[in-house]
């Protein structure tokens, strides 16, 4: 909790270098919408390793990070390429230990959401009606707990409090307050549950002006750093700013199936680019021949 402070307006490179250390527990949230791809790419460029990656829906960005070996462990509830199929780098890590074994801590969506909510609420655990009759209970970090009033048995899950949460939002104002709208997933809870929160934004504005439903605000004093990264969610999208690049998700299936094709793609588009703007240029340029 970084209270009594104001978010620092900085570059993505500086934000990641300052706050993301080897071995950290990092949550990069975004429920299909507003996924912080640019931040993930910057972590790949800087090479932080041994990370515990946390995310309800690890998708292509975590596939990339797992594929280059950033992650020691994954805490998650659904790991697929949305609308397409498997995450091949994730599967390769789990099925064949490539590039190295990946420890899994897996929950249901309801469990993960409750865990973040407990973290944001300063509670050590959350209760839910969950995991009933499943084999998940054997592998998830959970317990059962009896209601002190009715005796009913419920699931208990430990709070999630990442070292760093990274999200992408539509806007920040000049005081560092962040606004996002549309599908905001579990981002508010993930941000408030973390010790340190970094936000990339589409733009810095004089006043937050939502252009869609469900406006969520995170005040400056809950955030450590804000970096303007227009298009920073690509191939995910930012409602009001960009559309989802569905073709990229389909293309990713082919890129990620093969270790060498994947490696080449990372070399060219992430390691071979300086920042998100040049990544975006490289993607446009390369779109035809990937």
């Amino acid at each position, binding site marked *: 909790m970084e209270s009594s402070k104001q978010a620092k307006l900085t570059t993505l490179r500086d934000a990641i270098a300052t706050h993301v250390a080897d071995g950290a527990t990092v949550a990069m949230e975004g429920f299909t919408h507003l996924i912080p791809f640019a931040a993930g790419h910057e972590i790949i460029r800087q090479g932080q390793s041994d990370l515990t990656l946390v995310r309800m829906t690890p998708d292509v960005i975590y596939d990339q990070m797992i594929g280059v070996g950033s992650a020691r462990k994954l805490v998650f509830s659904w790991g697929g390429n*949305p609308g397409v199929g498997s995450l091949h780098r994730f599967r390769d890590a789990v*099925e064949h230990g490539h590039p190295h074994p990946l420890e899994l801590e*897996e929950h249901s969506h309801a469990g993960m959401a409750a865990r973040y909510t407990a973290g944001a609420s300063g509670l050590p655990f959350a209760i839910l*009606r*969950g*995991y009933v009759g499943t084999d998940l209970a054997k592998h998830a970090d959970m317990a059962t707990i009896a209601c002190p009033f009715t005796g009913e048995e419920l699931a208990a899950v430990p709070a999630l409090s990442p070292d760093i949460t990274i999200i992408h939002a539509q806007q920040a104002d000049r005081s560092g307050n962040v606004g996002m709208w*549309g*599908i905001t997933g579990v981002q508010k809870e993930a941000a408030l549950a973390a010790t340190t929160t970094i936000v990339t934004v589409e733009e810095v504005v004089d006043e937050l002006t939502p252009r869609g439903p469900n406006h969520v605000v995170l005040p400056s004093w809950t955030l450590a750093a804000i970096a303007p990264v227009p298009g920073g969610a690509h191939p995910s999208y930012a409602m009001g700013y960009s559309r989802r690049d569905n073709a990229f998700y389909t293309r990713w299936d082919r890129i990620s199936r093969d270790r060498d094709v994947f490696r080449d793609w990372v070399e060219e588009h992430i390691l071979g680019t300086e920042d998100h703007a040049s990544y975006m240029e490289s993607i446009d340029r390369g779109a035809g021949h990937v």
Partner: protein
Amino acid sequence: MFEVQPTLPSYSSDEMMTVTAARFLSDRQVCFVGIGLPSEAANLARLSHAPNVVLIYESGTIGTKPDVLPLSIGDGELAEKAEFVVGVPEVFAYWLQGGRIDLGFLSAAQIDRYGNLNSTVVGGYEEPKVRLPGAGGAPEIATSAGEVIIMLRHSERAFVPSVDFVTSVGFGRGGEGRPERAGRGPTVVITDLGVLRPDQSSNELTLVATHPGVSLEDVRVKTGWELAIAPDLAITEPPTDGELEILRDLKARTIVAHGG
């Protein structure tokens, strides 16, 4: 009666499956919908006989009426066309766990004869043959929705004697029945070959209908256990022209909108 002689069906098996599932939805039901075939079925129902069906996606879009099918659970279309949008913790706590969902859709990589589903792993958990995406919202949809409709293409790989992992509970590994306070569970399984429903006393999935042109043998070879057959086995009504037109229009609009 020349008109009824067998011809090549003018619809696909996926269309048959979607149309069949759509028919199980009633107007004003509150449905928790996933991407893919369930989303097609639910929106077909909304655009045909159930205009006031309430569709909720786990991304937090409530009462959404998309013009085109979403490709992901979090497409902008779902938010733009929703009555309102909430965060993911709320959708699971207040809306699903709160007991407000009449009907949930589930799919999986494996199903057993008691409607237990696996979307976690093929093979052992520690030594997986195929690592699947995992649970997502399924475990709690299976126990918090009033009832569950399962959509799954028939194959011996999918219809297995014993699932490798219970991601979502149906009637339990031994068919012992539903957990307490957990809704009715799977009331129907719709495949590309027919329709199965749990037997009232044994809880075993029983083939109650085949789709037109599908033989019993077709179903049996693609089911990994000795399949129970209802004595009054029916044949599904084929898709009507109206159903097909609405479904195909929806998919055509979708292709245009998503740029192919």
